[in-house]
């Protein structure tokens, strides 16, 4: 059926006809028509270019020349997700080129191309106007700030899995999308204060005489808001902001062996978060932890 549909569109392309009709009489409208067709179809397939030529009375060569000249027109189908890395000057001097290379390596395509599975289109842009956040990567309209090659994998895996919490089995990686304190059961996740576009964990923190509020990124487990030298979770003591229960003395990270932060995820599983980016579901531990089990039952 799909090919059938493609063919019928190719034959009379009513969508293109309507767009062209709306611009009739304007001498300069070719670029605007192409933009609208691209917005409707996602890209500019050949049948659409032919239809544009027919409806505007221009030659196909003319239409093709214009469509291929401007960067924002795409003659090939695009992926489900668009990853756009900024290569403006400000982002470049902060390492934007390395970010593009890392994206390109991870996705196995060059800038301007789409992965064979149709998942990702990788693009670069010249200044997205958010230089203060540079290097900037925008995934499906979501801005990631101060990106470096080390963050690229996680950004892509977030995009792949979407925002929804995967129903992870014991020992699997999970993105924390709901979290409560294992002791008092009050919410730790604050959607109103996102890091990298995702809700972050709110905690009280203490380190070398400094105390205050800090946030933990659910994307990569990195601590934000504590003094610079405390960026690694294991040097900081973290507490529930509601009941002051210690959060980071429960378990050690299976990957890197440092103390982690544990929170209760939405479905009652304990999720262990580490600054190394590990976020593993630990169902077994929940059973053994007295107070924690009660909470798990409550929720």
């Amino acid at each position: 059926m799909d090919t059938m549909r493609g063919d019928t569109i190719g034959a009379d392309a009513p969508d293109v006809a309507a767009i062209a009709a709306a611009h009739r009489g304007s001498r300069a409208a070719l670029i605007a028509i192409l933009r609208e067709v691209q917005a409707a179809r996602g890209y500019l397939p050949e049948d659409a270019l032919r239809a544009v030529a027919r409806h505007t009375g221009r030659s196909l060569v003319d239409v093709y020349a214009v469509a291929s000249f401007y960067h924002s027109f795409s003659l090939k189908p695009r992926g489900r997700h668009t990853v756009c890395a900024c290569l403006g000057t400000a982002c470049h001097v902060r390492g934007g080129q390395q970010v593009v290379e890392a994206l390109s390596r991870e996705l196995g395509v060059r800038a301007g191309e789409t992965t064979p599975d149709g998942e990702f289109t990788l693009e670069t842009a010249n200044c997205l106007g958010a230089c203060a956040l540079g290097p900037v990567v925008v995934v499906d309209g979501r801005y990631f700030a101060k990106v470096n090659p080390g963050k690229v994998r996680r950004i892509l895996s977030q995009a792949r899995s979407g925002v929804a919490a995967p129903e992870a089995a014991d020992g699997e990686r999970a993105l924390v999308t709901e979290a409560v304190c294992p002791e008092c059961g009050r919410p730790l996740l604050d959607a109103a204060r996102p890091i990298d576009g995702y809700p972050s964990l709110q905690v009280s923190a203490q380190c070398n005489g400094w105390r205050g509020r800090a946030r933990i990124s659910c994307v990569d487990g990195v601590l934000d808001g504590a003094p610079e030298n405390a960026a690694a979770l294991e040097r900081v003591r973290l507490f529930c902001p509601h009941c002051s229960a210690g959060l980071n003395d429960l378990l050690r990270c299976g990957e890197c062996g440092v103390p982690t932060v544990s929170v209760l995820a939405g479905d009652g599983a304990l999720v262990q978060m580490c600054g190394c980016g590990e976020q593993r579901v630990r169902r077994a531990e929940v059973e053994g932890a007295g107070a924690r089990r009660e909470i798990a039952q409550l929720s």
Partner: protein
Amino acid sequence: MPAYRSTVLLCAGGGCISCGCLPVREAMEAELKRRNLADEVRVVQTGCVGSCDLGPVLIVYPDEVFYQKVSPGDVPKLVDEHFLKGRVFERLLVKSAETDNLIATQREFAFFNKQVKIVLENCGVIDPENIEEYVARGGYLALGQVISERTPEWVIEELKKSGLRGRGGAGFPAGTKWDFVRKAPGERKYVVCNADEGDPGAFMDRSVLEGDPHRVLEAMAIAGFAASADQGYIYVRAEYPLAIRRTRRAIQQAREAGFLGRNLFESSFSFDIDIRVGAGAFVCGEETALLASIEGKRGIPRPRPPFPAVSGLWGKPTLINNVETYACIVPIITRGGDWYASIGTEKSKGTKVFALAGKIRNTGLVEVPMGTTLREIVYDIGGGVPNGRKFKAAQTGGPSGGCIPAEHLDIPMDYESLAKVGSIVGSGGLIIMDEDSCMVDVAKFFMEFCTDESCGKCPPCRVGTRQIYGLLDKITKGEARIEDLHLLEELCGMVKESSLCGLGQTAPNPVLSTLRYFRDEYLEHIVDRRCPAKVCPSLIRYSIDEAACTGCSLCARNCPENTIFKVEDQKKYRIDPARCVKCGVCFDVCRFGAVVKS
């Protein structure tokens, strides 16, 4: 209308929107309503305030209290403290870089109080989507006055007196250009606003359109009056959807209010404006290419003369100016050309907006009188270079410009002084670089940009830029020989001399200027095969300092090439240099500083 006791200005410029200011607005409005303050406190969404790295930003009037990095979660506490308890909410104040003291108000903040705002006087102050706010600040008065009381000659005379020069890059005197178009023979004439803003590190035109679009519309109408044109076009790049939306809306409102359309202010003068959206090509910023693009063709430059002032859109005389140039017109008309000429230096009048970014503490838009020194911009306004690094150079003028090294920090920023040191004011991109920036890499970056953007019409530009890029690439890979440096200089000279349009003619500038000031750095790449800034991947290597390594294995798990292995019987990791592709992932992920670049 209720008498508000307080107004909250919420920056909704591009930078702040990217870091989530819209949810802050929603939270603020909900909270004010919940506390029954909605009739007392008004929330206004403005254009870019300028301090983009502090976003989302709120300024509370009348006291001008400046809150930074506000998140929706902070809002209830902020409303409670500021509006109910009547005291400043300290947690969200800015800290002074030098003294660590809290800065409560916008006025006390050096980033703002060292600036002189003319172009940006309304940006971050009014709601750009509401024409009434513009009118309340004297908007469209100048247009009315000009149409009813003045002649086109008077307008052009004031403009000449002001000494205003084009802000799009070339610095051509605006009054002279307007006069040319006025005197060019022809029935039909056009006024065009160049908002293509192709410099990949600049965003002031965009901010003006996003923050104060009516100022540009009014100026274009005045230009139409002076040049006797009745139609204007604003050419905006497609990458600026917010600017397009707000400008479109402004045009609509201006038409409804009778500031655009037929018989303005009951005169015989009619003027209307349309938007044309570019589709992303740097060369379209060049005026003849831009006009071709408006006509719906490929944006390819043509030789000048004839200049657009004589033969532009569809062969008719066309006045084309940059957004910022237009943004200076209304103040010049209202306050007089002499007033404007009193600001700035002898040959560079008025103010200039710079988009300050890169390795600098305060990133954002700054407007200063022409002739302000680079040092004042970098240190007083910009707050200096962060992370204890040293200033190395400033890049101005983007791909057509050059760099200014530390020894010229005291240079006045104006057309003549910058030309003297081999750079240009350009459109206003100002990128700060520190010791960790490699100048060969920067030159290569701009050259790659130019090869991509060359329209391909003339061989010197199409082929020459590619050859220059090839040489720079060789240098950054440590494969070049000393002779290549001479070849590089020759090629640059050739491309400069024989290219058709400004793109090719200026493309070698970043190379020539880095060669002039940082020749040693080129030599180090070539002779010692070393990148002193540790940027060029081929010339650096990554290794693990085993004393610092805790054996956490994070690097090994993230290395895309699996080149990091565990040292036998030890909780330590090591990199196999032969297979390392220098992606830098391990360096970024190690939280113990154990991965070192050398």
